């Protein structure tokens, strides 16, 4: 029996030593990317650049490879002025893309990295014609157009160059708003008030709430005077039924699936009172 306890004790003790080693190492958790909401109304270019930097370091996973030599596996973007570097590459005879400027070149490199492979960094055996870099707009990285723009803004701004990309337009935001909830993430709790519902469904991305100025869609400051209650309801659940003249059919068609009846009725009442 002593043999039994000795050997069991030895075995468990050894396993505990291994456990101890893991406890001594830095404890880092690999979080899944979290959906972040961007408030477009107050977004400044500085915020946009900061967002681009964060994307570059984290969600975009760019720094996994793009880091300083000798440990990098791709050109050291942080160490290079990407605007002047882009100009050099656009002038290179091996360049096969269609871009004309730095922003276009950077975007092209993210979406189709093989358009220009920096000498020495191509896939093994491809003689620098095929890039090992994944397309960042595809899974698993899946950056949106807005996110790639933010990265371009960051890469332009970090060396003091002029930022040529524009802040995200409301169209892009509407697109993102329509795509994001469908792509997953926990369903938000039902809104309690009409104002909350307006925020939850990002109505103000496209509609001015307190003026008649057109954005993507018409302003809604006096919508109650223009439309009846059933018309407002129809415009939300089936936006394509009647489109105000001069506006694109850009409104998401799936509010009917997403809204609760209570939210819909609150919104309809709220808008009907705007006269």
């Amino acid at each position, binding site marked *: 029996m002593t*043999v*039994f306890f*000795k*050997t*069991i004790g*030895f*075995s*468990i003790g*050894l*396993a505990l030593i*291994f*456990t101890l*080693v*893991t*406890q001594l*190492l*830095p*404890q*880092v*958790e*690999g*979080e*899944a*990317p979290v959906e972040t909401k961007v408030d477009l109304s107050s977004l400044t270019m500085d915020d946009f650049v900061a967002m681009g930097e964060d994307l570059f*370091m*984290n969600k975009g*996973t760019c*720094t*996994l*490879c793009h*880091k300083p030599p*000798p*440990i*990098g*596996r791709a050109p050291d973007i942080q160490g290079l002025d990407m605007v002047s570097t882009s100009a050099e590459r656009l002038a290179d005879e091996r360049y096969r893309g269609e871009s004309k400027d730095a922003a276009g070149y950077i975007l092209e490199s993210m979406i189709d990295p093989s358009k220009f492979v920096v000498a*020495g960094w191509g896939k093994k055996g491809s003689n620098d014609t095929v890039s*090992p*870099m*994944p397309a960042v707009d*595809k*899974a*698993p*990285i899946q950056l949106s157009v807005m996110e790639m723009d933010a990265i371009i803004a960051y890469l332009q701004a970090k060396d003091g160059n002029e930022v040529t990309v524009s802040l995200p337009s409301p169209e892009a935001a509407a697109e993102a708003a329509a795509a994001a909830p*469908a*792509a*997953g*993430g*926990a*369903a938000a709790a039902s809104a309690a008030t009409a104002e909350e519902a307006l925020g939850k469904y990002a109505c103000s991305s496209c509609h001015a709430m307190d003026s008649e100025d057109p954005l993507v869609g018409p302003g809604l400051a006096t919508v109650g005077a223009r439309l009846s209650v*059933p018309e407002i*309801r*129809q415009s939300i*659940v*089936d936006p394509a039924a009647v489109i105000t003249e001069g506006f694109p059919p850009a409104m998401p*068609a799936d509010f*009917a*699936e997403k*809204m609760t*009846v209570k939210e*819909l009725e609150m919104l309809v009442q709220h808008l009907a009172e705007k006269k």
Partner: protein
Amino acid sequence: MGGADQRIAPIGRVHIAGQDFVPAADSAASGAEAPELIAAPRTSRKDYPNVGVSSRAVVWILAQLHLFFGALVLAVPLFVLVIELVGVTSGDERYDSMAHEFMKISLTGFSITAIFGGSLALALFLLYPDFMGYMMHVFGAQWLVYAGLFFLESFFLYTYYYGWNAMRYGNLKWVHLSLGLLLNGAGMTIMVISNSWATFMMAPSGVNEVGVVVGNIWEVMKGPLWNPINLHRFIANIGFGGAVVGAYAAYKFLSTKDMEKRAHYDWMGYTSNFIAILAFLPLPFAGYWLMAEIYAYSQQMGITAMGGILAWLFIVQAVLIGTILLAGNYYLWAGMSRTEGSKRYKPFIGFIAFVLVVCFLTWVTPHTLILSASEIAQLGGSHHHILGPLGIMPAKNIAVNLMLIVTFLSFQLYRRSDKVATVSWAPIGNALMVAIYVVAIVNIIFLGVYYGYFTNTVYKVGSSVAQVSSTLVVIIAGIVIDSLMFKNAKTLPSHWGRIPDRAQYALFALPIAFTWLMGLMGYVRSSVKTHWHVYTVMKDNSPDNFIPTIGYAGNMITIVTVLFLLFVLFMFWVASLSGTKQAKPETVTEGGVA
């Protein structure tokens, strides 16, 4: 649309009273399309049942125990068959009975594997219904083939084991060996089928970007990582199986004072250790292939494994492999006391031990790491200030290769320790062997230092292949030269059982380190998928879709290792029951039932 005929339907769309509802074009289209085109489901948090404890932890434990026992029962018949064959060709009955004993002690393992497999499937279907639904959809009828193979496996297992003594000699022995071969064939097929699920999750093939099945089952199975994983698991299983049965022999050795039994179990323990270490030596090369294929499939996935958060894990891996190599070497050195001729090689042991320790320390030197700005802040910089140059891959490659070479040297010396070469060219053979060792070691250091520190990344990576090749050349040359040189060698007497008790603890360290190592590698294999169930195709939106910390993983691995230990003890105990017979009570006691 008469009022009385209206049916109650779930609310799909809110529409305005009094207006006819026109179904949207997209929903009509999706109904009309061929039912084959089913994309991977997009789940949200609420699609994952909450059972109060972490679903991932439950699946983790069940999957790992299933895998441990699966690995054991796939490996044991494999080397049992080889040992049986050795017994037949050499005519030495001891091999045959040892093979039979290995089979006996792992027999309950088949049922335990099945029990954990069933529990795992149940847990997965209950806790991850959408994911499992998708996997069922992708693999389809393959599951039936898989289930069918269990019947074959059981049939061959029972006929092989229970028919052992019935088919022991002559032609019947060959029937028996064929049964063993079929048993292994069924087992291997089961393994590669279940591997295809794991590799599909890591690197899906045969499906399009959104997970719609576009290829046939073969295209789904034959993903880029399937064969590397098959080979890696196949080799590792053998090492693992050898280590576990070695612990059995060591336990039996320690618990008896009978010299004859001690000799038997010493020999059994030696054979197990031999199998474990022999299978272990090529494992890093299979691992290298797997990692290379992972990089080729997705550079991002490769770097997540080797350069990101998980990079720390390879320090733990180094500790484990160091433990395995030191234990294996120590056991060989201690075993030299069995033979008279081993004194010649004693001076080498100090040298080997020194190389092992230096290499081991180089290997556990912290890596160079970069993942994200927040992590760099957390770790306080990406380079270790003093140990930086030793922490990067070339130094570690040198260390690993040298450790493998000197382990092989230990092994070779042990094999030589009871023999004296009689061939006339023995001095030439020895000179060549020594020269090969020396030049190989120099070459490995040169390749690592020169290409690793003074050329570009591409040559650095390429040179590690040349290092590995040098190691392989040493191993192959050693086996070839020795087998020719000691063909009709004079054998010195050796005494089985003449080994210190403390050497047996090396045989316990091996399976514990092996088990723990498998658990650790399972953690990294699964974690490189990050927040995906099926990489790039089906997102994981469960509450556990993050990579846990290394400490948490360490706790989980120790839990599964200890559970495995307990179940293995149970398995050995059941095996020992079959050899025990209760003596018939001579008198009926007073209080007995009338």
